[in-house]
């Protein structure tokens, strides 16, 4: 490797005729832009091409969302809030609402969405007259023409896979980690079953206790679970813990 | 004075520190990294030794850490010939937050020490200008201490 610029410069300025060479450089561009168009884009009339994965405002596919609250937890600016809205059949469901006045367009909500219901959208013209207008409800977050390119997949390779000589296997971040029950701490309060957005937790009777009441223990359906850790956070006795597979 | 090493290797640094500065405790080493601790009383002499005899010309940072029961000042020192870094931690008791300034050795530590003083309240003795730098002059507290709680903390 050699120096590209330092080999040629500094030059003897008398050889480039003091100021004539820069003038010549400018004239060259002038001749070019008189006949061709200049680099500027006439913004409101022309727009730059942007790829699908452009991180504009977040978009939401209402039907796919289960209201797990992963986006709320991951949002670094705390601009997402779960609100109750009626779904297509009129049933109240929890869906995210985004305050775009605070949104930093980091794309974490789309990345950490277990079901890819949240996407990034190439929509960046977001000016409104009032701050209230910047609140995007779940229905308004819908973006017409969401393509698969707008989904942000969170695929990881396990360190154990690399060690085992299987480095090309990629798994979804949400397929591995599952909540694990510490049986001694559980009091059978059913909270986890209530907060589970995909109904993966079922309370199963496991015998009776001293007073003759049934002992309820959550049983987690691993195929349904999306690893949103709602049950972990809501457990009053810290009986559930996410077991991280590495 | 002892001999001056311009391009010391990690082993040489460790042996030198062990022989010439017995107060320094080298905790661990890695490739091009030496981690050491020193008592507060000798920190200035140790720094001067590292600068003069081991040719560590550059002081990357002076960091304050609040461990509640004590505070720690961490110096990161660089040798420009080999790229070796020494991390020198000096513990300070929480009731007597004083340490000798290294600004006379490395001028570049000046602002780092000012910053550490204003955010943690660690007083650097013999510092040429220990004034507030980032925060307004009217501040009467040290915002980076653990005792200073953020309003919106989760």
């Amino acid at each position, binding site marked *: 490797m050699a120096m590209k610029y330092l080999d040629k410069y500094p030059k003897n300025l008398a050889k480039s005729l003091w100021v004539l060479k820069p003038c010549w*450089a400018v004239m060259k*561009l002038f001749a070019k832009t008189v006949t061709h168009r200049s680099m500027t884009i006439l913004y409101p009339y022309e727009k730059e091409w942007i790829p699908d994965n452009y991180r504009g405002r977040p978009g939401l596919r209402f039907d796919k969302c289960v209201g797990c609250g992963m986006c709320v937890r991951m949002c670094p600016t705390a601009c997402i809030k779960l609100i109750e809205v009626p779904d297509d059949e009129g049933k109240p469901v929890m869906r995210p609402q985004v305050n775009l006045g605070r949104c930093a367009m980091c794309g974490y909500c789309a990345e950490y969405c277990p079901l890819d219901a949240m996407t990034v959208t190439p929509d960046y013209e977001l000016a409104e007259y009032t701050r209230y207008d910047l609140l995007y409800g779940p229905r308004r977050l819908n973006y017409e023409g969401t393509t698969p390119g707008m989904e942000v997949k969170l695929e990881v390779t396990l360190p154990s896979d690399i060690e085992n000589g299987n480095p090309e296997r990629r798994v979804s971040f949400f397929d591995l980690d599952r909540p694990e029950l510490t049986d001694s701490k559980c009091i059978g309060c059913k909270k986890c079953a209530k907060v589970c957005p995909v109904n993966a937790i079922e309370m199963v009777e496991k015998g009776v206790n001293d007073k003759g009441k049934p002992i309820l223990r959550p049983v987690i359906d691993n195929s349904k679970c999306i690893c949103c850790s709602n049950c972990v956070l809501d457990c009053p006795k810290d009986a559930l813990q996410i077991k991280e597979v590495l | 004075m002892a001999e001056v090493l311009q391009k010391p290797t990690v082993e040489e640094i460790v042996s030198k520190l062990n022989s010439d500065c017995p107060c320094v405790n080298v905790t661990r080493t890695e490739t091009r990294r030496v981690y050491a601790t020193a008592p507060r009383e000798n920190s200035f002499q140790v720094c001067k030794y590292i600068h003069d005899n081991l040719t560590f010309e550059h002081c990357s940072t002076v960091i304050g850490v609040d461990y509640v029961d004590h505070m720690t000042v961490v110096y990161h020192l660089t040798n420009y010939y080999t790229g070796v870094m020494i991390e020198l931690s000096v513990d300070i008791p929480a009731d007597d937050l004083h340490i000798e300034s290294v600004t006379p050795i490395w001028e570049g530590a000046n602002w780092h020490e000012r910053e550490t003083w204003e955010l943690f309240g660690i007083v650097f003795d013999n510092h040429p200008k220990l004034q507030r730098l980032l925060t307004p002059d009217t501040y009467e507290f040290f915002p980076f201490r653990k005792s200073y709680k953020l309003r919106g903390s989760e």
Partner: protein
Amino acid sequence: MVQEYSSILDWIVFNDPMKNPYYPFVDTYNLPFDIGYKLWEILGGAIAWLINLIFPGNPVSTWLVCDATSTLMGLLIFMLLIFIIAFVSTLIVLWMERKCLGRMMDRRGTMVGMKGFLQCVADGLKTFMKENTAPKKVDKMTYWWCVSLIVGLSVLVLCMVPLSQRWFVVDYQTGLLIIMAFFALAPFLILVSGWAQNNKYSLIGGMRAAELMISYEVPMLILIATTALLAGSFNIGDIVNAQNETVWYIIPQIIGAITFFFCATAEAERVPFDIAEAEAELVEGWQTEYAGMKWGLIMLGDYMRGSVSCSMFAILYLGGWTLPFIGNGPIPEIVFLLKSYLVFFFMILIRCALARVRTDQILNIGWKVFMPLSVINLAIVLLLKVGGVF
């Protein structure tokens, strides 16, 4: 004298202004005065005819079309005409700078109406609508007078530049010197206003204006004297005619022309010699405390001075309004303006390609480069003159 006035054409007779005993330009034909005179004949004649219709035989009608009134009103319209043409040509210069600068920087330049020309109008309206503020601690009198005088002097100099043999204000024998004298007054006022504004940036800017003037004024005057020596006159018309008879003076005086170009750039305080403004370190230099309309006028004054510099170059070295082998041509004014725009294009080029020089550098350049060059140029001209070439 009793005259029968029946039709409007009896009132509007289109006299020859040269035959008017009050003709102000002695024996040279002046086109703008002619236009103004004729315009007044139409306007005043129509008014006089109307008044005469209602009050036949009244003295006012006769007064309106008499020789003295026609000359007076013709002069008023003449002034307006001169100013408007000069003003519009300045706006064209402004537009040209914005467009060319944009192209050279790979952007589009102004885009508002008429290929961006109306942007000047929009800017003017905007600055005029701004609040007219003055800082509390400025020296009021000098603060206000300096800006008025700088703008006024710029307009004066701009109007005094003749566009052709028939388009001039005064036809002095020493016209060149008078223009240069008024032109060189501005730096003094900049210095004074720099003091008056009670601001450190302005003060340094004002000092720099004086420093700048010291460096370029002397070589510039030597160059003008050289050209006058070559032509044998300080009269602008004579200089142009002399070039028409021989060759454009840029050919014998190429060194002088280049030096004069840079001096003229410095005179107009444009990049690379805009050290009095120097927005990188002095915010806006001596204009820092001038806001709104005042700033807009100063900016306009700058461009007026820029276009005067270009006109001077065209007069001194590019044969003014004449063309080789053709001479005066049908519309010499347009030829002259085009030449000065060409010179201004090179000023834009320089502005686009170069950076701002430092104060010590401009002094060095002025005294160690421009001064010897202008003296060398003088020597060449002297040799040519003595050798009998010119």
